């Protein structure tokens, strides 16, 4: 039998999944990922901004995670830092989304056919961006991720986590996922990939 591995990476294209879990003190859930987690520099800037991370929980979590989280440098992020060094009041606007688009373009051009992006998001606008159109991309929001972790027995308190998230929201976060499109590819590489685990 031919064996084929897949390279899964978690990409977090908006600040919300991190900030949501920081609010309920459950950033530790990211430790369940055994694959790299990638955050573009502009989103990193958003999640560590003092207004969004007043207690420094996110910064401490990033330190703790070490190289399990890759901060992806983009021209958008570097450009923003340059402009902000000249004028600290420079607004970041929607640069996070543009930086993610830049990274998605890079992946579309350079990622090997074994690369599987697992996109963890909350902002529905992500579904309209380039990263949502990458080949083999799987998209899921925080609620769907937590429910899947509970279904798989990885965490025992999935419902409690969801209840705590929803207690901080005006309306409940409903699980949302969009699995990779190509059934044929999935059924082939998933089965083969499982042989390569452990």
């Amino acid at each position, binding site marked *: 039998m031919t064996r084929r591995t*897949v390279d*899964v990476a*978690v990409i977090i294209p908006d600040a919300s999944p991190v900030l949501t879990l*920081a609010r309920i*003190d*459950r*950033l*530790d*859930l990211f*430790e*369940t*990922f*055994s*694959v790299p987690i990638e955050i573009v520099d502009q989103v990193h800037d958003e999640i560590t901004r003092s207004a969004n991370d007043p207690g420094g*929980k996110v910064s*401490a*979590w990033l330190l*703790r995670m070490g190289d399990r989280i890759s901060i992806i440098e983009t021209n958008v992020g570097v450009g923003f830092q340059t402009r902000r060094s000249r004028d600290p009041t420079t607004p970041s606007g929607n640069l996070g989304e543009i930086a993610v688009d830049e990274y998605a373009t890079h992946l579309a051009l350079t990622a090997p056919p074994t690369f*599987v992006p*697992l996109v963890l998001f909350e902002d529905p606008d992500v579904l309209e961006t380039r990263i949502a159109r990458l080949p083999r991309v*799987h998209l*899921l929001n925080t609620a*769907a*991720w937590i*429910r*899947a*972790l509970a*279904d*798989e*027995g*990885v*965490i025992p308190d999935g419902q409690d986590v969801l*209840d705590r998230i*929803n207690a901080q929201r005006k*309306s*409940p976060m*409903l*699980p949302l*996922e969009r*699995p*990779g499109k190509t059934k044929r590819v*999935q059924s082939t590489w*998933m089965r083969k*990939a*499982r042989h390569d*685990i452990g």
Partner: protein
Amino acid sequence: MTLAEMLDKLERGKIGHAAAMKWLGTDSINDLVATVHANGRQMPGHRATAISTETRDILRLATRRVGLSSAN
């Protein structure tokens, strides 16, 4: 009885659909289900929308069981 109390009783099976619909003043089961879901609850005996096999498969590939600290 508040809406939250009514939904809690319905979810735990303490009252039935008919009583819940009467409380809401609707004769539509769809309206009842929509209200239950909009408030982050499930109909009694129902499970939330299942996460797809494909997503569970990929999470199995990308996840490990660790002792979580939940203190961060």
